């Protein structure tokens, strides 16, 4: 699993690389021997995590920013992978010198979460006890487990308090969880295109994706590694389903409409079940590409982590009460055409923060690209992010002066 794709294979992700790139980056690996107790009651005895860092941690260790990844991204947030010049970080338009999250100012950390498949310990890793891949035996991890694992990386790097923890979608859930579970370690929580919990519809889409994988004859109960096969068809269909939810109806209409892929003479239909429309071709291509680099068990695990995230479950559904321990300043951003995690879901979080009198800023960006918009370079969106991080940077400078005087 060498190549890390841009998170949603966003069409515009490559445009901003030329200037302001952090340059060639190398993955570092951290090994942890101390067992990680999990929300499920199980324990991850020992594990490795793949990380990347950009910029320099200042003397006060006050300028660290943690970037949390979503379903199919990784620790490779920005820059160009040392071993593959085509492998550009999934949030390269956001993170770099002079970018909204400016690596000339901030020390930025990307961590591949445990359970994923880009270098950190996951279902495809070899289980020391058996000498075979974990497969179905790999424990189910939650957002809260990831936060604990990330906190250990921060400890090793000498970061006590993050200037900001940020993420989009599932990454936003981690930013939210950080603010609630380790409040003293988060000064700012930046939650983009996210939700306080999945809706029944969200879970339903995840379940369709999981059934596609699990019912693939090559899945072998999750131990397909031993059979030397991969449930490629199932994973591909899972990705197709997911991909539909990342795009808006308008976006699809504009990109594909009802355009036929290769019409018969005179523009006629083929009256069959092969690829007739452009949108089918696109989805199949995305699915097949994805199935070649992503691990099916990881897809199951991460969609489950999405389903289980519900911090208000502990407080009888009262999100405000769940958020009460947070001491961070919050920035929430949503996109008007995002129907996966619609603006109303972000507003729920804003409302809960306001109920607690907690500081929150909320930008609702009128963008056409659906859920995928959080990865794209939209001037209004990036303007708000840049301004917010400039304020954080100004706070650091002031703090620095106070420390020196």
């Amino acid at each position, binding site marked *: 699993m060498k190549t890390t794709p841009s998170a949603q294979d966003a069409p515009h992700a490559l445009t901003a690389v030329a200037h302001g790139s952090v340059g060639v980056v190398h993955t570092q690996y951290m090994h942890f021997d101390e067992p990680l107790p999990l929300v499920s009651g199980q324990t991850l005895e020992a594990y490795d995590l793949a990380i990347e860092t950009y910029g320099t941690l200042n003397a006060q260790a006050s300028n660290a920013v943690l970037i949390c990844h979503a379903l199919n991204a990784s620790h490779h947030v920005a820059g160009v992978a040392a071993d593959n010049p085509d492998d550009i970080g999934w949030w390269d338009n956001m993170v770099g010198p002079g970018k909204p999250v400016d690596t000339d100012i901030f020390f930025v950390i990307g961590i591949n979460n445990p359970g994923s498949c880009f270098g950190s310990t996951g279902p495809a890793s070899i289980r020391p006890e058996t000498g075979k891949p974990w497969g179905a035996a790999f424990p189910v991890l939650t957002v809260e487990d990831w936060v604990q694992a990330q906190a250990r990386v921060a400890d090793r790097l000498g970061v006590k308090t993050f200037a900001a923890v940020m993420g989009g979608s599932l990454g936003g859930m981690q930013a939210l969880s950080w603010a609630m579970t380790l409040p003293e370690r988060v000064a700012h929580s930046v939650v983009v295109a996210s939700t306080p919990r999945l809706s029944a519809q969200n879970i339903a889409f995840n379940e369709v994706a999981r059934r596609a994988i699990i019912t693939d004859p090559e899945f072998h109960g999750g131990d397909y590694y031993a059979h030397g096969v991969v449930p490629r068809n199932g994973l591909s269909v899972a990705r197709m389903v997911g991909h539909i939810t990342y795009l808006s109806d308008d976006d699809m209409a504009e990109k594909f409409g009802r355009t036929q892929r290769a019409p018969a003479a005179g523009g006629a239909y083929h009256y069959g079940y092969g690829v007739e429309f452009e949108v089918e071709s696109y989805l199949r291509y995305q699915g097949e590409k994805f199935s070649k680099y992503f691990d099916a068990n990881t897809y199951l695990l991460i969609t489950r982590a999405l389903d289980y995230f519900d911090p208000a479950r502990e407080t009888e559904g009262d999100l405000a009460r769940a958020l009460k321990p947070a001491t961070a300043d919050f920035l929430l951003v949503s996109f008007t055409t995002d129907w996966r995690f619609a603006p109303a879901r972000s507003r729920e979080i*804003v*409302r809960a923060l306001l109920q607690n009198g907690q*500081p*929150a*800023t*909320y930008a609702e960006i009128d963008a056409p690209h659906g859920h995928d918009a959080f990865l794209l370079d939209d001037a209004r969106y990036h303007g*708000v992010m840049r301004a*917010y991080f400039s304020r954080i940077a100004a706070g650091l400078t002031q703090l620095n002066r106070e420390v020196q005087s």
Partner: protein
Amino acid sequence: MSSQFSQMSLRADLVRIAQWVRPDSSVLDLGCGDGALLGHLKQTKGIRGVGVEISDARVLSCVQRGVHVIQQNLEDGLAMFDDQQFDTVVLSQTLQSMHRTEHILREMVRVAREAIVSFPNFGYWPHGWSILRGRMPVTGQMPYDWYDTPNIHLCTLKDFERLAAKFDFTILERATFNDEQEVKSLAGWRSTLAAYRFTAAQS
């Protein structure tokens, strides 16, 4: 220094509104623009403030200023806010352009203990003169032609006070202005702009 500067650059009605806000209180500014009032109140009175603003550019200005802002259309109502969540709610020079005037006023006294509104005074005497001459008034406080104005619910001081009475609002204070100068007498005719501080409760 910086607070003096922001005081000087603040519009006259905002200066007065700022005087009406208690130190260390919580303030909701509806249609907060670039966040000038909230920024000023934060610096000078240590308030906890949040603004509501629809425009992308103004939301950006607020973030640049470090003012907390919620991007939302006021016409969608204040469902985001709980009953009596703030000490003071402000609606400055926005009432006249809102579709649901009665609704927003009722919502204001729901979400905060005290409400402050400011609006251009349609009763300003040159307006009447202009109408007598057969033309819709176009003045400094209302610089729009009739076919190109966001102002759809203009009123006079008396009009507003009648509406307040209808809702059983208690008007605590009124301030009136003409071209940044406070107007003390014959305000109904002489002022271009009025600000009111009121509560829902009868005192």
